[in-house]
């Protein structure tokens, strides 16, 4: 990911050869990714074919060819830099799906989904934070990358808090295709002992009506 654009960006500083570029690229991203040198060479060949880079002079004593950025290559990488990242705005997010299906199916109290995810995400956030504490502010590349991960984790935790609160305030769910003869099978399975968190079992007509209006 990003090797092609990374090489183009680094060549803006002046002509360079594959081996050097690989080291520069790893340094530029704070050692967060390791770059395969073979991939660097094949990418350079493809860039040359597409006239985004050109060979600068002939091979040196070690047989290494230096490449230079062409005007087209410069335009290409600048275009890539200013192009906003595609957003992941898919509403069919799997975590959303789990909460909704737990609630609708009656298989599980959705709180169990929230609890499990919250624990895992908090643990990940603790890990990012711990790793950050070991970094000096000079390790800017890594700090920025970890900030990004940490803020994503925080957003997820905030969302889980919100889900918990909204579910508390929401009318009870209508369980999908509950068997008419047995109500026992539609009781949520509560895998965790959480006294007092699941006491909304009576369904008021208004609550049911509100539930049915949902798509």
């Amino acid at each position: 990911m990003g090797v092609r654009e990374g090489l183009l960006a680094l060549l803006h500083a002046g002509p360079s050869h594959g081996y050097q570029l690989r080291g520069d690229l790893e340094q530029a991203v704070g050692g967060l990714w390791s770059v395969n040198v073979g991939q660097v060479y094949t990418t350079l060949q493809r860039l040359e074919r597409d006239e985004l880079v050109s060979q600068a002079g002939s091979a040196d004593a070690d047989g290494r060819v230096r490449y230079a950025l062409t005007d087209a290559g410069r335009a290409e990488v600048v275009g890539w830099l200013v192009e906003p990242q595609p957003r992941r705005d898919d509403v069919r997010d799997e975590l959303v799906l789990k909460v909704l299906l737990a609630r609708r199916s009656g298989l599980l109290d959705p709180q169990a989904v929230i609890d499990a995810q919250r624990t895992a995400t908090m643990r990940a956030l603790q890990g990012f934070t711990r790793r950050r504490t070991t970094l000096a502010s000079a390790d800017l590349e890594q700090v920025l990358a970890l900030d990004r991960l940490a803020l994503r984790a925080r957003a997820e935790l905030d969302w889980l808090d919100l889900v918990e609160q909204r579910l508390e305030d929401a009318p009870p769910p209508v369980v999908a295709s509950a068997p008419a003869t047995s109500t026992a099978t539609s009781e949520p399975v509560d895998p965790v002992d959480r006294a007092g968190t699941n006491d909304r079992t009576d369904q008021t007509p208004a609550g049911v009506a509100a539930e049915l209006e949902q798509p």
Partner: protein
Amino acid sequence: MTSPTPVLRLRDVRRVHGDGPSASVALDGVDLDLHAGELVAVTGRSGSGKSTLLNLAGGLDVPTSGSVEVAGERLDGLSRTRLAELRRRHVGYVFQADNLLPTLTALENVALPLELDGVAVGAARGAAQRSLERVLGPEHAGRYPDQLSGGEQQRVAIARALIGERTLLLADEPTGALDEVTAEGVLRLLREAVDAGAAALMVTHDPAQAAWADRVVRLRDGRVQSAVTAEGSEVAS
């Protein structure tokens, strides 16, 4: 790693405000151990019992039932004098803001707990100087709170909370009003104090700040809903 006697121990702590039909349960059945070298964050919605927990831990409030121990000593049954002494010897507080007395310099603020404790002014100031130098450049010692930034004020507050070898740090939203980068500096300092042997209990609503802790305890309706312990320092990359 952890000493056998926790710096703070709560057992089956229940706190009910008011009585009769209007009684409200602020905490119910809470157990918590906090050891030297541990930073524990307490999170939860407003009204979940976070502040009550902090007040009980510092002996500022008394449980309706259950026990609170600081440095191995049960707080209930202590005389007011003895409780105050225990608090002064072991417990330091850091609050959200306006922590410092505006008419005292940074150094005087840090020295204050010792001076109130009867330590001679010279000795208190010396200890304050050392405590302050761990968190701020020496040029700040003579400045008044309004001459310090928010982050610097919180650093002074932490120096004051730690003065005199206090072992239990109680922090209530210690970075509440600060921007992310400044807050990080304060949390780093708190972390260092804990790594140097203090124990800290920090109330925060922000999961990113809670993540600085070794353990994140989440309260819901006065009960411990979950406790998440950090796994070493390894991260999937």
